[in-house]
């Protein structure tokens, strides 16, 4: 395994999420929830 600083950072677990992949997934989930909220506001108050 390549022990470059980049790979070391990639392999180290990151706070809160565990891995970068999970962090990205969390961002996507938040985005979906945000857009759903905006859509709800648009529809509910129209």
């Amino acid at each position, binding site marked *: 395994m390549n022990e*470059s*600083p*980049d790979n070391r*950072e*990639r392999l180290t677990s*990151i706070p809160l999420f565990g891995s*970068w992949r999970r*962090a*990205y997934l969390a*961002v*996507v989930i*938040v*985005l979906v929830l*945000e*857009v759903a909220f*905006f*859509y709800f*506001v*648009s529809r*509910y*108050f*129209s």
Partner: protein
Amino acid sequence: MSELDYAVLFGTLLAIAIYGWWKTRADHDLNHYLRGDSSIRWGTIGLSVMATQASAVTFLSTPGQAYESGMGFLQNYFGLPFALIVVCAVFIPIYHRLKVVTAYEYLGQRFDQKTRLLGAFLFLLQRGLAAGITIYAPAIILSVLLGWNLRLTIILSGLFVVIYTATGGTSAVSHTQKWQMAVILAGMGVAFGMILHRLPPDFSFLQAVSVAGKMGKLHAVDFSFDLQRRYTFWSGLLGGFFLALSYFGTDQSQVQRYLAGGSLAGSRFGLLFNAVLKLPMQFFILLTGVMVFIFFQFEKPPIFFNQPAYQRATQTAQAGKLALLQTRYDQLFAQKQIAVRSLTSAMDSHSARAIETATSAVLRAQKEIETIRGEVKQTLKAADPKLETSDADYVFITFVLDYLPHGVIGLLIAVIFCAGMSSSASELNALGSTTVVDFYRPLLHPHASEAHYLLVSKLLTAAWGGVAISFALFANLVENLIQAINILGSIFYGSILGIFLVAFFLRFVRGTAVFVAALISQALVLILFYSTTIGYLWYNVLGCVMVLILSALLETTLFRARPLA
């Protein structure tokens, strides 16, 4: 503005600038100057990235856009979180591994010198122009409304940024942006609270939102496939994705922000912080504009928000016509006020029929008012053909100056200047760095000392400040300032992003093919811009896709590598 407002304004701006200078006073290292201090943490990076993107026009134009057209502009940012994930996963690891100072250095390593220079040149061209607009935008509006001298406002606000950016470099920019963003968020929070406080006492926030919804101001998501519409879910998701990918992945003014800390995790967290918070922040700013709109359902707004221009026109031959229009406007506004009150009563009664009838009456009155405002704009144009009749950029600041208490006015003017200065600082920092790293060092003076490059970096940052100030001095007010910056970016970003995506994903394509493809694509985007009316976000997609396809075609046909004999 009172003495208290001036004290708050200058106190805030000076404190932040002095803090930036003090934090970097002992910094005499070229690497620190260009790349920043390795102790900068992800929170500072996140705020710095956010402050770079949120310019003065964000706070002048965006509420005005919501006032006029509702929340549709929000869709512009739907693709941004996806773009930031791609930047985190693909771009940042490469930039860190190669230890580049500018994004274009990577193009030199992956392709060749001419492609690096093309990428850097396109950046300098569009960012150099945008830097001028960034300084011009707050100056024109504040000078018109406050009676300040426009040239003096441009020169002073520009010089203020140039001094701490040129002396402190990347670290100074990041440290000052953290506090500028804090002032911005605090100021906008106070403004929002004050708007709600100024609504009629018997009118709740929920009623305000309901009336805004009935008047069509809360439509934030439009799923139609109409290419002519500027903001739809699809153009925001796809066009916004490409715009954000290009802006965050290849625009040195942003790349320099997230590479500032020196750690891969810090850069990624800083960007993901923005991926999560950008949409709520824009939503909040647009909602502020919508609440100003609701406030002006009860308080009569000026018939034209650029009041000094209107007053000038009343001194011309158009005065009689304007007076007639003003009388008609006053009558219509009184009718609309009654209609809005009827609508709130109908909503309280929960009668669907009554709500429908009252909504129709309000919309009818609103339409008539818009017609009158259209006639006023035509009359103003007749009085002064050079006048810019779009007054959306004046809406929020008019509300601030006319209805907020002293002290808060100073704070909100400080918000606008902080936002303008934070964006200008990033732009000048990036323009100076790119000129030194991609042009001066490799082409003009390859073997000089670090002290020499540090001095040249400072001088070139100051010189770009001079260019931006000069451009601002000779600029004219365009349709809407925030759109002008986005349109300018969209024209060039597609091609630049295309070059980078070819570098990352089409490993078989070499320098000459991508160089020629980028030139052709840029020319085609310019032709499309001048000859069609498609929404500008699509230029990002078209420019990028053309570079990808053309470079692959050219590499496999015209520039195919010939086997050695």
